[in-house]
């Protein structure tokens, strides 16, 4: 596959690993922000190939993982009590709510459908005018344009039975929150490539300056990740801190203008609660008042008074990079992909599930 196979070349991977080994003298903790990067690191076995003084710390960039439990409860409530057609991206439906996941709601008779695109949900609304259709619009900046576009389309066509239950979160405020934590041990960031493909690079300069920390916007293939790590280590070893773009084949400095325009039309920046982390100011998107009739939380009366998180789940510390999944007492025992306590064990991009599925400990190949 063009633009894929060349970024999985064993020869280039070898060469990059050699270069990293040559220049890496200090002990460095590098956080890959995006769950897609975590997934790729473990799936390709890269963690077992890096020199031991380079530690990868897994960030909060898994949209499924940071969606607060009360929002899952709202989705379940809408599906069961309001009997809406609840449409969702696939990996969201297994995330446990206070009482049940959307998958369990489905087995109890709720109409829960897995879609790839919110525009499909608009189509379902068009074809089922007698039913209310709600799209569970989660994600980072990456999925925001498509979710915004679905509202724009529905509005343009006069479709009144469509709304979104939104839980959009933003990457830069999360990086800021991680860095401002006094226990933070992150020396550098691999920036989330696809988020920057939408939003561009400008938002990251203030973080680089404020915390004097290298940020290298990085892609997802093995060669991308190793090149990003190499660029980061090079800065760290020289005592530099700057914003660099490893993923230039996809990320442009100013991002994707039409996508940003769609976001700006529908969403405004609001405070957001992050599962396991708590509320972060100005860290997400909410639907603008002008489009409130497409906002499921305003359209429906939602009663989720009993909403609560499992207090034994350490996902907050894991997502802030404070502990590795395998040091969580529940990991692999009380908490498994079949019976997850927290969201990072559900999504294949979640740090816990990634470690569970691909972990090397049993084979003696694990290193962290």
């Amino acid at each position, binding site marked *: 596959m063009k633009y894929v196979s060349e970024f999985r070349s064993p020869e280039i991977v070898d060469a990059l690993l050699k270069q990293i080994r040559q220049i890496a003298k200090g002990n460095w903790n590098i956080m890959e922000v995006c769950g897609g990067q975590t997934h790729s690191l473990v799936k390709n076995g890269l963690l*077992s190939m890096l020199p031991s003084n380079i530690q990868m710390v897994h960030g909060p960039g898994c949209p499924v993982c940071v969606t607060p439990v009360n929002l899952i409860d709202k989705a379940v409530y809408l599906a069961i009590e309001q009997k809406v057609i609840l449409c969702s991206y696939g990996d969201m439906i297994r995330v446990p709510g206070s009482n049940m996941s959307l998958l369990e709601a489905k087995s109890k008779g709720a109409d829960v459908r897995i879609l790839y695109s919110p525009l499909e949900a608009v189509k379902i609304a068009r074809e089922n005018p007698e039913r209310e259709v709600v799209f569970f619009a989660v994600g980072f900046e990456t999925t925001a344009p498509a979710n915004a576009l679905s509202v724009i389309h529905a509005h343009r066509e006069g479709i009144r039975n469509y709304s979104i239950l939104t839980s959009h979160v933003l990457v830069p405020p999360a990086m800021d929150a991680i860095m401002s934590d006094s226990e933070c041990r992150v020396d550098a960031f691999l920036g989330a490539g696809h988020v920057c493909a939408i939003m561009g690079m400008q938002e990251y300069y203030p973080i680089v300056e404020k915390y004097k920390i290298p940020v290298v916007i990085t892609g997802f293939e093995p060669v991308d990740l190793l090149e990003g790590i190499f660029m980061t280590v090079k800065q760290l070893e020289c005592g530099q801190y700057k914003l660099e773009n490893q993923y230039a084949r996809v990320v442009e400095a100013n991002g994707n203008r039409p996508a940003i325009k769609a976001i700006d039309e529908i969403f405004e920046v609001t405070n957001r609660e992050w599962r396991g982390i708590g509320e972060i100011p100005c860290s997400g998107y909410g639907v603008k008042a002008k489009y409130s009739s497409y906002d499921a939380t305003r359209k429906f009366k939602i009663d989720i008074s009993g909403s609560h998180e499992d207090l034994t789940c350490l996902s907050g510390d894991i997502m802030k990079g404070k502990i590795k999944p395998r040091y969580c007492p529940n990991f692999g025992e009380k908490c498994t992909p079949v019976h997850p306590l927290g969201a990072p064990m559900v999504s294949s991009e979640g740090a816990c599930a990634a470690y569970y599925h691909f972990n090397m400990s049993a084979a003696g*190949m694990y290193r962290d």
Partner: protein
Amino acid sequence: MNLSCPIPKFDFDTINLGHGSGGTLTSQLLDAGVFKLLENDLLNKKHDGAVFSLNGKVAMSTDTYVVSPVFFEGGNIGDLAVNGTVNDLAMCGAAAKYLTLSFVLEEGLKMTEFWEILVSIKTACDAAGVIVITGDTKVVERGKGDKIFINTTGIGLVHPRANIDIDNIKPGDRIILSGPLARHGITIISHREGLQFETTISSDTRPLNQIVSALLDEFGEYIHLLRDPTRGGLATVLNEIAAQANLGISISQKNIPVEEEVDGACEMLGFDPLYVANEGLFVAIVDASIAGELLKRLQAWEYGAMAGIVGEVTADHPCKVIMKSTIGGHRVVNMLAGEQLPRIC
């Protein structure tokens, strides 16, 4: 669809509850449809069961088919129901001889669709060299089924040289995969609501009994284990084998065949081809001494061009499947917790 089998004249365009009543409509459906198309001496008795003799060691297998959509690129639920059971027997080292065939039809199923499925069953039976000798038909109310469910049970004679047993596998044995992964699963998912995408990928459903029989003729007891990686894919089958045998399995991603278009679809969907279903593939765990020869024989088969030795059995890491990635890293390949779900981004 086989054009030499024109649809007979039925009194109704769709299946209704009467077709499952056991009365006149059932007889019409069976006489004009099932019995006529699939006729053979045993089925023609139209009795509640079939009476026959078999000499030798016998294998038996049963499976129920509930695939949705019922029709897909490369086949339909009909061929699947025949090939699936024929292949389960082949994995026991047996050549399927007789099948039972039971339908659960949903009220409202179009007669033309039912006929198309029946014709596929007939074609698949002919290709695999099996006959249907008895069966059953039930009809459920609209909304209580998904067009059609099929159960087939097969019985077959075990190859005289076959000695297929989990206890036979040992460290050093080679793991051979008969063709490229994930075609069936990706074909099916490409039809699902909300996930549709245009593709030329087709299901790999096909009978495996002839090739397995030919391999057993030549390599007999050197073939230690056969499994078809259907639901759950290659990863699941290898994990089951590792756990049952209490041995480790090492595989190399580089040697695992996946067609480029299938690989691309998996990338797009966020699926791992190791976990995607197949319908016309098998994994053979064979003695290292004949692995090369067996592979050559398999590659000469019309569907075997991409067959490869994908790994080996090891005494290290018992019960674990470890894969060396294309770039040289290692990872554990686990069992899947539930269904593979498409990722958000």
